[in-house]
């Protein structure tokens, strides 16, 4: 079999992190090569190097017999590499055929002036569209077609570009099972034509169904490459998680919480966009409840719905046994909820505010009569408040008048924590609290979470880092496709168990303690 792509000893370092460590990977004609690994294992980084988005720190890439030490996006494309990202890159505002030819519109000379060759465009478009089984006219606007159809347009685009290698990054996340079947049919057809497919997925069933070979990555290192028919799903899970847990974390208390008071309860929350379906859970006094699951499984969506930042279609929330109504973050804050969001820059801090202003805004709003608009700011209190929390949380800054954008990620996160603590929040939701944060701040945040729980506050943690959840939480709820697929006490939970539960290999529905 002909080797289409060979990546040799590819290493990629970002400041402070080795994202890929001497990875070798090859793609052959007519195979589906699965790339498997946890969130952050380096799959996307590897593919971004292949497509020329990132420049590798060292290593070689061999395409069609030519050796490259780095690629530009143009070189990658010219050498037959095509990538279909999870967030599809089709342009909604133009037609399917124009999408297919983006960047390489065919022209024809009329009166020596090159004009768009619509005839050729349409002919070629119809040809590739029938190949991928898309029954739409080439002039249809992309905004009028479904997500699975957009994906077919992406594949058609790869065919127009005459790609030899097509990389698909978790292509089935937003597809129904019949749409997935259709996608597999297309993939098999492409295989038969001698194309090489790189298939990134977490779904074990799919891997068994469509894959020929599988390469497993873990924390940026190469674990191994196997023939899919020679390994079991269990083998793959072991390869994915078989890492040592680093010893710097604080272990949770292994007590039974079922006798403790329920301080926060969520019943049957659903969202209209179906990203959260009928989710219920309880949080007991002193307990830290973690939420595991794949990226996109609906954990953040659930938290945003609870916090009132995004709408929910149904469901009830109880605080200390009393039903509370939350339709907006303002109402959530009034009831004592707090949310440390996943994206600090977009939803966490105010970039035009200094440290003291960032630390006071929630308190100001919480202590008003109506919608945060009544009352005056108190300069003296603002200074004291910021002084207190920068000290307690060990925020490294010049002074409290410094703009928050000048701080490091870890210190920004501490300022955000400070604003919620200042408002005396009772239930604190942490969504990926240590994303992009240095190790020192990380462990400080873990200690703080435990302290908060011991003070009787409710702590909910969403994290994609399993070691983090296992060392911080007392109980872990595993999310899968918008539902809680299992709830485990930390003494029974293992990485293996959680991965199996989040990929749907095991099912354990229903609430604990009942």
């Amino acid at each position, binding site marked *: 079999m002909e080797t289409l792509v060979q990546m040799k000893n590819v290493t990629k370092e970002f400041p402070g992190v080795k994202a890929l460590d001497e990875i070798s990977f090859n793609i052959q004609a007519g195979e589906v090569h699965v790339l498997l690994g946890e969130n952050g294992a380096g799959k996307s980084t590897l593919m971004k190097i292949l497509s020329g988005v990132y420049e590798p720190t060292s290593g070689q890439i061999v395409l069609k017999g030519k050796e490259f030490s780095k690629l530009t996006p143009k070189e990658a494309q010219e050498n037959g590499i095509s990538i279909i990202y999870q967030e599809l890159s089709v342009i909604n505002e133009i037609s399917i055929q124009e999408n297919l030819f983006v960047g390489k519109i065919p022209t024809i000379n009329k009166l020596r002036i090159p004009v768009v060759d619509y005839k050729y465009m349409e002919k070629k478009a119809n040809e590739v569209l029938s190949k991928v089984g898309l029954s739409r006219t080439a002039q249809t606007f992309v905004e009028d077609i479904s997500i699975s159809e957009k994906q077919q347009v992406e594949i058609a685009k790869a065919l127009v570009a005459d790609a030899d290698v097509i990389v698909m990054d978790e292509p089935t996340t937003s597809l129904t099972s019949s749409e997935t079947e259709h996608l597999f049919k297309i993939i098999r057809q492409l295989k038969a034509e001698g194309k090489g497919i790189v298939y990134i997925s977490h779904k074990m069933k799919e891997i068994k169904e469509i894959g020929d070979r599988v390469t497993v990555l873990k924390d940026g290192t190469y674990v191994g490459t196997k023939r899919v028919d020679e390994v079991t799903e269990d083998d793959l899970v072991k390869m994915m998680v078989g890492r040592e847990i680093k010893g710097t974390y604080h272990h949770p208390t292994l007590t039974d919480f079922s006798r403790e008071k329920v301080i926060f309860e969520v019943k049957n929350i659903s969202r209209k966009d179906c990203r959260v379906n009928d989710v219920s859970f309880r949080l007991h006094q002193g307990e830290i409840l973690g939420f595991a699951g794949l990226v996109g499984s609906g954990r953040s969506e659930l938290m945003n719905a609870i916090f009132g*930042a995004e709408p929910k279609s149904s469901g009830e929330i109880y605080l200390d046994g009393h039903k509370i109504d939350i339709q907006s973050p303002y109402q959530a804050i009034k009831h004592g909820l707090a949310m440390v969001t996943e994206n600090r820059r*977009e939803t966490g801090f105010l970039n*035009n505010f200094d440290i003291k202003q960032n630390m006071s805004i929630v308190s100001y709003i919480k202590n008003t009569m109506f919608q*945060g608009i009544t009352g005056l*700011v108190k300069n003296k209190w603002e200074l004291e408040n910021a002084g207190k929390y920068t000290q307690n949380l060990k925020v490294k800054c010049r002074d409290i008048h410094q703009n928050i954008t000048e701080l490091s990620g870890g210190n920004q996160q501490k300022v955000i924590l400070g604003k919620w603590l200042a408002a005396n929040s009772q239930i604190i939701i942490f969504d990926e609290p240590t994303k992009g944060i240095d190790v020192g701040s990380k462990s400080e945040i873990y200690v703080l979470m435990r302290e908060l729980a011991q003070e009787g506050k409710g702590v909910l943690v969403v994290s994609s880092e399993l070691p983090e959840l296992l060392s911080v939480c007392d109980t872990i709820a595993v999310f899968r496709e918008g539902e809680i697929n299992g709830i485990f006490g930390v003494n029974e939970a293992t990485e293996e168990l959680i991965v199996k539960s989040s990929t749907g290999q095991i099912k354990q529905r229903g609430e604990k303690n009942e």
Partner: protein
Amino acid sequence: MNKQAQAEKMSFNTMWQKYGTLGIFVLLVVVLTILKPESILNLQSIPQILNQSSVNILLALGEFFAILIAGIDLSVGSIAALVGMIVAKMMVAGIPVMLALFLGVIFGGVFGFMNGFLVNKTGLHPFIITLGTQAIFRGVTLIISNARSVFGFPVEFITFISSRVLGIPVAVIIAVVVAIILAFFTKKTKVGRNIYALGGNKEAAWYSGVNVKLHTLLVFIISGICSSIAGIVLIGRVGAAEPAAATGFETYAIAASIIGGTSFFGGKGKISGVFVGGLIIGIINYGMTVLTVPSSYQQIVMGSLIIISVTIDRFVATKK
């Protein structure tokens, strides 16, 4: 506090942010003094410049809030004209002056409310909404006035608006009082702080509990009220309500806000800066008039100033 001590070491960025507006103002005064000393070095000219600037300042103060939330309000001139016309009609019809003025301000608030309501309901950028309402308000002005000017205001209104306190025209006092109230509002009230938060980062403000729609509404109401006061001052100064009054004044209001240091990207700016920005527009107009520069050239200078100010603002913003 050693805040001042640390602020001593200043880059161009901080210098521009702190003193840029004032610097332009001083520069203009100096230039004018050199070119035509008698035009500025007399007791008459300063109240005159202030008086001429008052309408611009009032419009700019409202515009400031719209720009502060990374929006814009193109309807300020139209609202001023419409409210001016309504107040004029009411006074001519015999409604007591004070009641007419009060109702005029209420109307301004209502027109602003309409802008904010439409922005919230449609989710469209304020540019589109106020571009539309600008034309609508102007159209209503033309309809209720039959496209004719309204004269013959009660004497007490004319004497009130043209009176002076300690030599300072009442129009100027009104502008100063509005500015002081709004400066207090932006600096000392929670709602003012929230508006800055909304302008800096709408999403983060929402997650911090800011009611985005309510604050957007308030911003446009404030802008409408400021415009209505400007409209009243304008008819008082001209002595008539004209259907085409304040046409194009939104450009001056936007220019004054931006030259006054308000970031077009939202979240940054000060009332004091906007006040000086309004004065700068006034002094440019005055200076060119005394230097007998044709008004078409005045437009060119004004336009250039807007572009230069925003360019420097952008340069400062991206360098950070």
